[in-house]
Structures are given as C-alpha cells and as structure tokens.
C-alpha cells in the first residue's frame, strides 16, 4: 500500500489474484482480450436466436417436404427434397403474386425515380422556399402506410352500387372521379366490386409512387448539393446548354445516388405488402376479387398463417433469390454506367 486508495473492486480482484494464481493468469491478465465479448454478448445471444438460427432453420425447412405445424409436433419424419419449391411454383396463386409484384416493381421504380429526379433538380436550382418545399416533399415519409392507404382508398372509392345495380346507383363517385368528371372524363370504378385489374393496379401505382418519392428526393437532392459548383461554372464559360450540362455533368455525377435509389427501390418493391393492405384491406383485392392483388410477401404470410411452413420457407427462399439476382443485375448495370 503506497498511499493510493483501493476501491472495493480492486480489493476483490487482488484477493482472488493472491489466492488463485491460475485466476490471475487466465482471467485477469487476459481480460483486455476477451472483454469485448462481454459488450457483444447481449446482441450476440439475440442474433443467434432470432437471426442466425432462422437462416439455418428456414433453409432446412424449405427442403423438408410438406413440413407443417401439426405433422411436426406429431413427430412425423419428412423426406428431403425439392417438393416444396415445386408446390410453390405450380400453385396458381403464387404466379398471380409473382406477376403482381414484378408489375408493381417495373411500373413504380422508374416512375418514382424519374419524378424524384425531376423534383430534386428543380429544388436544387431554386433558393427561395427551398427548405419549405423540401419539407413538404418529405412529409409522405413520416406516415403510416396502412393509415394513409385508407385515405387513398377513400379518395378512389365510389359510394353506391356501381356495377351490381342496374341501372348503377352512384351516390358519390369519390374525389378522384370528381376531378376526372371536371375535365370531361368518364367515371372509373377504381377499386369497388366489379372493378377491373388495371384500375386496381393504377391505384396501387399512384399510392406506391407517392409513398416512394420522399426518400428518393432526399437522397438525390443530397447528391445534387454535393456536386462541386466549379463543374457548372466551367460549363457556363464554355457556353454549354442546360440540357447538355444536365446530361453530361449532373447525371454522371449523380449516378451513384441514382443507382442507390433504384436498387433500394427494387428491393423495397419486391417486398411490397402493407401498402396493398392499406388500400384493399387484408383480403388483398376488391370485394369479390380477394387475393387478386396479393404479392410475394403476402403469399408467404398466408402460408405461415395456414402453418404450411415448408412452402412458406420455400417461397421466402425464392423471394430472396429473386432479390439477389435483381440486385446483382442492378449492380452489374451500374458498374458499367455509374461514374464514381
């Protein structure tokens, strides 16, 4: 004791170190080497249970033919094979889901990216009210996709017997149809009983694009603001036209951001689900057409709820595979086109 005050902790450690030399050698002296694992342990335990094990188990279940809740608790043995995958692909509802998902992706990603780019470029070239408008364009992001889906449903909804009643009784055609009428168009049955598939799709595309804009505008505007002004000054000195400046300076320098929003857009698009629930409800379709707008994720959840875990796992793996391929394709294209 050389005058320094020992804390209780030090005393305890000192006591153990004195009594048990092996404790000092293997625990106290090596402490800096393994103390990180103490910090990591809560996260690692949870990750093992809820992330690592599911990866292993879901892959395992996907290859156990006909794996389901009842049979599994009954102690049945399952043979190993690809039957789950075959079942999924051959099931007609899955093809509908796949078609809907792909169609929504292919329609919404280009439209929302183009609109977001246009808005971001315009926002970037104004000063007055820029912050204000930027905030407005971000607003749809902080919403509940189910709740605002219900608002869109109300806007497109026709109150009355539109198709079943002869003659049709329309009490109010909804605000969207009011606007169409105002411009001299015909009322469309967007999403009620008897509505057509393309009309349903149109509602979904409008809603998903509206929902996807804020994130894309935020990222693209951030990218635009990061472009060095000197490039534009140089272009101005050379007398380059606006269009050419946009094509030769803005787009190439923005291409990493564009690639980013397109890739995340496709990934999100393949996982589309709750926006459809917001508009059409848990039936995933208009009255009388339940399941017509179901998506891949919806298919997986239906399978989980009916406890057909084998097919659910197989479908999830197929979804993962599709996302991987599409992302790889995107990366491959962007490697050729993106200017870093």
């Amino acid at each position, binding site marked *: 004791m050389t005058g320094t005050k020992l804390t209780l902790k030090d005393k305890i450690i000192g006591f153990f170190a004195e009594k048990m030399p092996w404790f000092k050698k293997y625990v106290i002296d090596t402490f800096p080497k393994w103390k990180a694992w103490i910090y990591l342990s809560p996260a690692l335990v949870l990750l093992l249970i809820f992330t690592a094990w599911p990866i292993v188990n*879901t892959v395992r279940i996907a290859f156990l033919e006909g794996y389901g809740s009842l049979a599994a608790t009954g102690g049945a043995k399952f043979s190993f094979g690809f039957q789950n995958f075959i079942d999924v692909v051959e099931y007609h509802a899955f093809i509908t889901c796949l078609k809907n998902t792909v169609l929504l992706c292919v329609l919404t990603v280009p439209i929302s990216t183009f609109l977001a780019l246009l808005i971001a470029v315009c926002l970037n*070239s104004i000063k007055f009210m820029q912050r204000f408008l930027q905030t407005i364009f971000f607003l749809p992001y902080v919403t509940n996709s189910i709740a605002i889906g219900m*608002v869109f449903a109300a*806007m497109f909804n026709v109150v009355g017997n539109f198709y079943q009643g002869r003659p049709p009784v329309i009490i109010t*055609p909804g605000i969207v149809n009011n606007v169409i009428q105002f411009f001299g168009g015909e009322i469309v049955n967007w999403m009620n009983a008897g509505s057509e598939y393309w009309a349903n799709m149109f509602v979904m595309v409008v809603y998903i694009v509206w929902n996807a804009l804020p994130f894309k505008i935020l990222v693209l505007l951030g990218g635009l603001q990061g472009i060095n002004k000197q490039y534009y000054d140089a272009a101005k000195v050379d007398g380059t036209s606006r269009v050419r400046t946009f094509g030769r300076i803005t787009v190439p320098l923005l291409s990493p951001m564009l690639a980013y929003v397109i890739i995340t857009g496709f990934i999100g698009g393949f996982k589309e689900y709750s926006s459809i*629930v917001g508009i059409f409800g848990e039936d995933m379709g208009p*009255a009388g057409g339940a399941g017509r707008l179901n998506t891949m994720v919806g298919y997986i959840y239906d399978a989980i709820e009916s406890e057909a875990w084998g097919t659910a796992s197989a479908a999830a793996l197929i979804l993962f595979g599709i996302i991987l391929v599409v992302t790889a394709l995107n990366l491959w294209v962007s490697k050729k086109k993106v200017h870093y």
Partner: protein
Amino acid sequence: MNTNTGIVTMHEKDMKRVQATQKVVKVFVKIALYTFLCIMALIVLFPFYWMIISSLKTLEEYKLAIPTFFPKQIMWSNYVRAFDTANLGRLFLNTMYVGIVSTLLSLVITVLTAFAFARLEFKGKDLLFGALLATMMIPGELFTITNYITVVKFGWYQTFTVLIVPFLVSIFYIYLLRQNFMQIPEELYLAAKVDGTSDIKYLWKVMIPLAMPSLISITILKMMGAWNSYIWPRLVANDDAHKMITNGLRNAFTDATGQADFPLQMAAVALVSAPLFLVFIFLRKYIMKGVSRSGIKG
C-alpha cells in the same frame, strides 16, 4: 475613329439585347420551376388535406355528389366517436408501451455493441462485422417463419415480449452508431485509459454525449417502427390486450362494401397520423439524417 466608336456602340447594343433576352429566359425558367414544384407539392399534400376535411364532415355531406372542399358543419364529434369505435386509447397505450421498452433496451444493446466494434480489439472483429452487415440483405420474411415457430415454442404467443424481444438488435443501428463512434478521436480513449477511467465511464461520459445526434435518430426511427409495425404483430399478438395501433386501425374499419362511414374512418386515420407529424415537425433534422442513410422505414 468614327467607325471604331460605331462598332463599339453596336457591340454594346448587342450585349444589352442578349442580356435582356437572357433575363427574360431566366424569369420564365424560374416561373416554370416554381409552378411545377408547387403543383407537385399540392399533389403530395392533397391526401392530407382530404383526410382532415373529410374527417370533419357529416356522413351526409361526405356523400354529396358534388364534393365540398370545406366542411359546412364541423363535426369534432367524429373524433370522439372514432376514438371509441377503434378503441384507440387501448391501442395507443399498447403501442407506447412496446415502443418505449423496446427503444430503451435497443439503445443499451446498440451502444454496447457499437462500442465494442468501434474501440475494442478482439479476434475476428472484421469478420463478425462483415457477417452482420451481410445479414441486412436477407429479406425479413425469411426470419419470420422460424421466429414464429420459436416464439410459439417459448410460450410468447400473444404477449408483449413477442413484440419487443425479436427486434431488439438492429444491424443498421449498430452500423450507424459505430460510424459515429469511429469519428470520435481515438486519442480521447487512450487518454482516458491512461487516467484509469473505466470503459463504461468513458462510454457514458464521452462517447454517448458526442454521439447524441445518432442516438436521437435511432430513438425516433425505433419509435416510428413500433407505431407503424403491422405484419409481425398481426401474426403473433392480434388479441385485444396486445393489439398495436396499426392493426387495430385497419381491423376496426374493414367494411369493403363501399358503405363505410368514411368521415369516422378518416378521423381515426388523422388521430393515428398526428403523433408522427408532431415528431416530424420538432425533430425533422434527425429523421432526415437517419433516413438518408437507410432507406428502410422504422
């Protein structure tokens, strides 16, 4: 000399003309820009406007063939009725409970993990971190199937635990915070070591205050995640005692015949959306900062 001055004046005239046309073009471009942006902004805002005015109308007024753009008679009572119909009070409490508990626990875990990855040395650090980042690519549905089986086996079906525990660890939050921790100069840590400050004390006194913006971003995103969560709660805790607000909202108004009481429905939607807008108004900076780096909701 005369001709010379003549040229100069011609030149000046030309310059002036060019400048004038440039100015006119500039003004037109400005007008076009603002017109476009304002129209887009109105389109973006319209659903919110329609939600609010519809929520204040009587059902009769809502059903008018020619819509009104401002309610003739403001029906505040719609909000009271919506609150009761959808049982929003209970849903609100459930959601707040899940949100607050999971945010607090998640923050503790994220801070500890991010600290280990940012400042401590251990074998296989880069490998582990890379593996964690790789799992972010896997769609959540792949985990959901096994997690559903697991939580049922644990006896967590229809409890609050099932809504909190499986999602406590977010690789994205760990990544976000680790990046922020790495920006803090390592010299501070080494100095603290020399002074004999313990890791925990250093973490609490130095790292956490400096990383506050990231922590606030994480808190907001996590709370918003609880508020907007729909799929997992529907699967594992859809009973009245544990129902979350989004599930309750959708299920309270599932009338698909087109005869639903829309003003009431819109009032409920407005009530559910209001807290999100309040958070957005006051903490916009943190939300936008967190979001621009993620691309995921909640």
